[in-house]
């Protein structure tokens, strides 16, 4: 698989018009990040996805006096990336509509971004702060509601309390250790993160991964999609108070994880991938495909039963509608954007691993409500089983690994379609062969930005269901 990428060097002054041109042609911005090629030389890179079928574009821009024009009013999804660059690299973006810190604020003693709420002009309305320690076994994040009784007037999520500085942690590591770290950026997306990272390093090294390794990569990636989607349905049934539905969803997820453990030796399928292919020779245990088929039958029955339960459907239909325009502008990705009518899937549009020899069905929905998101995920879940069934009998023989040395000063871009959406890794290798800069754009970072627009002016009862229907992680967003 050859990575198709177009590198462009742009002037700071040409940015705005370039973005407008991209949007007018039907393309979309994907991410932006800054990196220091030298202690006093900083460069900002923008990743743009032009219309379907064309390769990615990487725009390299040098800030003038550590400042660049803000593109947030043209491409709102860039707003968070610009704020992140402000916080972590000290750049400033002229004309940014929300210039307050997003990730951390180094100016006060304990680096943590301060809470900035919109001014609420009504002394009678109340702000409720929910979290960061929430009621169940959940990740930490604080959610602020401006509410009156049941009605939510405004909603502000306060994330980045879990910011571990993972991108900084990558710096100085060897590419092998980088893989170990990448698996732990988002624990339930270990395979996808390792995959994107390895592909980035392989792109930088210019090496070709053997077919067997690429097929195994698809195998574990789809298995990860299966257990993540089953977890999602368990959580959705829990939010809609379907007790047996929740128990069954969680039990099926457990069975999937146990299958993963039997296949790879680790329930989250860690320690399988490395730059260049697989870490060791992998073998499908005897009887494993039959167990997978049995699981598939149970999953089909479970999903069918869910679709027949009126109380569950009642709570999902018209809940948390994400309009298509908002999804596009805010950069929503994965099943969430597909449920709002945006037809994008990295496996089909920019195939990687062994996806070029498979046809990946991309389910789509138009209504953008919680039910649409659940339906899209259900279709993806069954499609994953189909892909595994197709792939298992035709696993190639041959080597599972090639040597992969990324030359000093090289750059690589890798991506993967995770269960939550598109994931990008941009890897810069330093002069000593160790990692100099790794940028992680996780799908949850994009989707959390879109989520508040489905909560404003809805009600409290729907909030938990809506949040469960998005199915995001905070670790992936905060990194």
């Amino acid at each position: 698989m050859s990575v198709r990428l177009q590198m462009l060097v742009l002037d700071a002054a040409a940015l705005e018009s370039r973005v407008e041109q991209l949007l007018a042609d039907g393309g979309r911005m994907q991410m932006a990040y800054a990196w220091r090629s030298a202690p006093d030389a900083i460069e900002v890179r923008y990743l743009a996805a032009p219309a379907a079928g064309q390769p990615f574009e990487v725009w390299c821009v040098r800030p003038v006096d550590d400042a660049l024009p803000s593109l947030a009013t043209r491409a709102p999804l860039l707003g968070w990336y610009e704020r992140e660059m402000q916080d972590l690299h000290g750049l400033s973006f002229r004309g940014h509509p929300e210039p307050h810190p997003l990730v951390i604020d180094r100016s006060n003693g304990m680096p943590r971004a301060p809470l900035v709420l919109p001014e609420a002009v009504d002394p009678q309305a109340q702000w409720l702060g929910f979290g960061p320690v929430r009621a169940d076994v959940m990740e930490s994040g604080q959610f602020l509601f401006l509410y009156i009784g049941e009605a939510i007037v405004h909603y502000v999520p306060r994330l980045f309390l879990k910011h571990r500085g993972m991108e900084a942690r990558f710096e100085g590591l060897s590419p092998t250790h980088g893989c170990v770290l990448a698996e732990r950026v988002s624990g339930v997306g270990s395979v996808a993160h390792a995959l994107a990272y390895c592909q980035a390093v392989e792109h930088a090294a210019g090496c070709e991964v053997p077919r067997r390794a690429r097929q195994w990569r698809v195998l574990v990636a789809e298995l990860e999609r299966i257990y993540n989607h089953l977890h999602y349905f368990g959580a959705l049934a829990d939010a809609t108070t379907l007790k047996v539905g929740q128990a069954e969803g969680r039990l099926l997820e457990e069975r999937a994880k146990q299958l993963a453990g039997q296949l790879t030796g680790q329930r989250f399928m860690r320690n399988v991938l490395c730059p260049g292919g697989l870490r060791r020779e992998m073998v499908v245990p005897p009887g494993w495909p039959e167990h997978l088929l049995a699981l598939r039958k149970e999953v089909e029955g479970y999903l069918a039963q869910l679709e027949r339960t009126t109380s569950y459907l009642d709570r999902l239909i018209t809940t948390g509608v994400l309009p298509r325009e908002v999804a596009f502008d805010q950069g929503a990705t994965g099943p969430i954007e597909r449920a709002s009518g945006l037809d994008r899937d990295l496996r089909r549009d920019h195939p990687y691993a062994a996806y070029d020899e498979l046809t990946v069905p991309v389910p789509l929905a138009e209504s953008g409500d919680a039910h649409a998101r659940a339906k899209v995920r259900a279709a993806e879940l069954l499609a994953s089983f189909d892909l595994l069934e197709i792939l298992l009998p035709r696993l190639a023989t041959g080597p599972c690994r090639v040597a992969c040395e990324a030359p000093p000063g090289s750059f690589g871009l890798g991506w993967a379609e995770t269960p939550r959406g598109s994931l990008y890794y941009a890897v810069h290798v330093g002069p000593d062969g160790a990692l100099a800069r790794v940028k992680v754009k996780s799908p949850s970072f994009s989707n959390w930005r879109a989520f508040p627009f489905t909560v404003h002016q809805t009600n409290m009862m729907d909030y938990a269901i809506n949040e469960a229907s998005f199915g995001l992680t905070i670790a992936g967003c905060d990194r």
Partner: protein
Amino acid sequence: MPLWTLRGLGQGKATTGWPKDPAAHGQQGTIGMPSVGADRCTEDCHRCADACPTQAITLDTRGHLETLDYGRCVNCQLCVETCPAGTLQPGSEWAFGVRDRVDLQWSLDPDPRPPEVRLASHIERSFRGSLHVRHVDAGSCNGCESELQALNNPFYNLHRLGIFFTASPRAADLLLVTGTVTTGMHEPLLAAWEAMPEPKRVLACGTCAVSGGVCGGTETSGHGLEGVLPVDVWLPGCPPNPAAIIEALLMLLERKPQRIHGGRVHER
């Protein structure tokens, strides 16, 4: 709803017999923490120490493996894969919950006798059959949360052991912490600890909470619970699987004996 109820009943019992049935833990096929065999190290080979991403391995002057701190081990298997001599082997043990941090440190010359277990303080009788746990995520990768959420699925079914997760620290006996303690979550974690009534205990779940793991030591990420809270049980693993978490909880409740001493497994 009768449809769902009948469906659930029709599927029978899915709960495992573990821990009563020692073989039914559900982790068949998974690789445990690396086990250290006989000292077969070659001279001046420091491949395992170099391979370890968390510096869990120290070598002696001959370049032989001297100590392996399981509290820092993320079970990445790099040391096992790179060891040419066979000192480090893939292990089958994944339940590494201990009361003292030093018990996670394997060293070359241990005390040959398993130490006598004399506990400084016993857990209150009232907790043995019923424990309420408040979980706080202090900056994890979500892997530990995934395994903790699995504790209440029909397979593990934590409720049958009398252990429950509560919504409020006011009603909790045990504070179960995952993550490295980021600067953002430092204050809420301490607030949760302060909010718990006495007697209260702490369980550090996952290598990140025990020692910071691979994520620790950055500008915003701490080194786990050491020095932050008084920890009663240390449970490494990345992440520890639900069976290991159950075993650690039962050990805290003195319903199961501690199996790991000095980094070695001692069956009683």
